[in-house]
């Protein structure tokens, strides 16, 4: 009975999205652009929920309980996506833009890392968990939305952009002199962006995780079963064991990598079809000039992204309360504040929540969980931390880490270093916090 009810609810969610898609298409062909974002969002949501794919758990679970499953999943997704991105860039079908390279990425990643462990989910994890009915993640989402909107509307953030970030170099390894001289033509994308920026550091990361966290337990189990001492073959078996430890996560990683690549390809196709490199130009053609920034653009990454569209939601709400949210560089000059129903990247986020909800319903994992007690504090604080961290780093675990590394921007690794350090600090805090509560419980023994 429950199964049938859940299936019906999942079909209703899918039906609503189909209806919205048809309405958009009927209103104006340009809106097919939004429809593409919706359905890629749905694909991300389905896969994130299926694989319980959350970047927060990657280093948090490693530091807290010694489990590396999510690191393997992320590396799988990133490697596949990087290969597809190199292929698309070589064929002039890429949409990737590197970010300013600087220490702000480490600092932003650090603040973001603290926040994501406190909130129990990263920026993308917060969306898919909200789709599962997780109230703590919904609070974290509120924190991300409003902390960003408020921060970018300050003169301090304008100064950060004009006096610092905009002066920094933006690079991909393929475009560096040494790589482009050594590997002219398309080869530079595969060598510089894919091999050097993504594959080699990923292999090193996997080896570090294997030798410091996985090998000891694996060898103990393996040597119990077999005769003789350790051989090199055991280490290869161990590495394979690490990669295959959670099939569900690895499969999700593989599919997320493919979907992210298809997303870029499709968005570029849309841009070519409509002769516009940004949806803002299409909004202007349709007469919605109030939606766009002074440059005529709106936030339209052309690939998987999470936090900027959430900042736009905050700005949209604050505008309704009378705040001027356009006298700043972030919204006024760069991203605009479109009406929510005409915000392309926001539809991707809505798609993620809807996709996750469908998968959770079909897996009987959907349940509205109202946060109580400490979870309210962790959710809100974590969300605020993620929002601030994402703005300082100019991106989150997707835009500043996953996408940048795969696209050949070494700055993605700087964000990753900060995120790891931040996760470590939060895990230390939670270890202390939970040990304290366990000690209280055990007084009764």
């Amino acid at each position, binding site marked *: 009975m429950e199964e049938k009810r859940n299936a019906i609810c999942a079909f209703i969610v899918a039906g609503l999205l189909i209806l919205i898609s048809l309405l958009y298409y009927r209103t104006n062909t340009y809106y097919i652009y939004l429809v593409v974002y919706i359905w890629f969002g749905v694909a991300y949501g389905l896969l994130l929920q299926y694989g319980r794919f959350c970047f927060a758990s990657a280093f948090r679970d490693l530091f*807290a309980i010694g489990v590396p499953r999510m690191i393997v999943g992320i590396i799988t997704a990133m490697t596949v996506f990087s290969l597809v991105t190199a292929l698309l860039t070589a064929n002039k079908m890429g949409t990737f833009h590197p970010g300013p390279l600087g220490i702000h990425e480490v600092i932003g990643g650090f603040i973001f890392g603290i926040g994501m*462990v406190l909130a129990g989910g990263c920026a993308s994890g917060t969306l898919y968990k909200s789709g599962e009915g997780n109230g703590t993640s919904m609070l974290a989402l509120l924190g991300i939305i409003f902390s960003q909107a408020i921060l970018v509307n300050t003169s301090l953030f304008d100064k950060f952009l004009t006096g610092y970030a905009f002066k920094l170099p933006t690079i991909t390894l393929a475009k560096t002199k040494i790589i482009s001289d050594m590997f002219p033509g398309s080869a530079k994308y595969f060598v510089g962006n894919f091999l050097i920026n993504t594959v080699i550091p990923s292999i090193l990361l996997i080896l570090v995780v294997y030798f410091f966290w996985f090998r000891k*337990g694996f060898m103990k189990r393996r040597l119990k079963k077999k005769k003789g001492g350790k051989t090199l073959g055991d280490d290869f078996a161990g590495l394979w064991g690490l990669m295959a430890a959670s099939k569900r996560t690895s499969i999700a990683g593989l599919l997320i990598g493919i979907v992210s690549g298809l997303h870029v390809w499709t968005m570029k196709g849309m841009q070519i079809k409509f002769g516009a490199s940004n949806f803002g130009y299409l909004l202007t053609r349709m007469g919605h000039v109030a939606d766009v920034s002074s440059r005529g653009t709106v936030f339209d990454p052309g690939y998987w992204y999470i936090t900027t569209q959430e900042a736009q939601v905050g700005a949209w709400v604050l505008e309704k309360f009378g705040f001027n949210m356009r006298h700043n560089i972030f919204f006024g000059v760069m991203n605009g504040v479109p009406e929510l129903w005409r915000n392309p990247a926001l539809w991707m986020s809505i798609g993620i929540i809807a996709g996750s909800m469908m998968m959770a319903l079909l897996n009987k994992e959907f349940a509205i969980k109202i946060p109580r007690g400490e979870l309210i504090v962790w959710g809100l604080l974590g969300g605020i931390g993620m929002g601030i961290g994402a703005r300082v780093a100019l991106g989150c675990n997707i835009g500043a880490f996953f996408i940048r590394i795969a696209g050949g921007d070494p700055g993605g690794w700087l964000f990753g270093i900060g995120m790891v350090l931040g996760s470590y600090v939060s895990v230390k805090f939670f270890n202390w916090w939970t040990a304290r509560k366990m000690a209280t419980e055990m007084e009764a023994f």
Partner: protein
Amino acid sequence: MAMKFEKKSGGGYLLDICGYVCPHPQIYTKQALGKIKEGDHLEVVFDNPSSSESISQMCEQRGDEIIEKKREGGKFTFIIEKG
């Protein structure tokens, strides 16, 4: 919502962490396993789907055995024998 860690009357221990989200269920499970003796049974009850994957892998790596996995609605019950 409150975490409950207690000795069961029939032997073994119960850790009830329903209502908690990541990372609390997996951290509490690790802490509880650290408090009990080898061979003891720990019944963990939680309702956070993501934690099931993490707790399963943690037990495998630590050498603890999950001797029973049950799921009723959104609630998961793992009985773990400490290795």
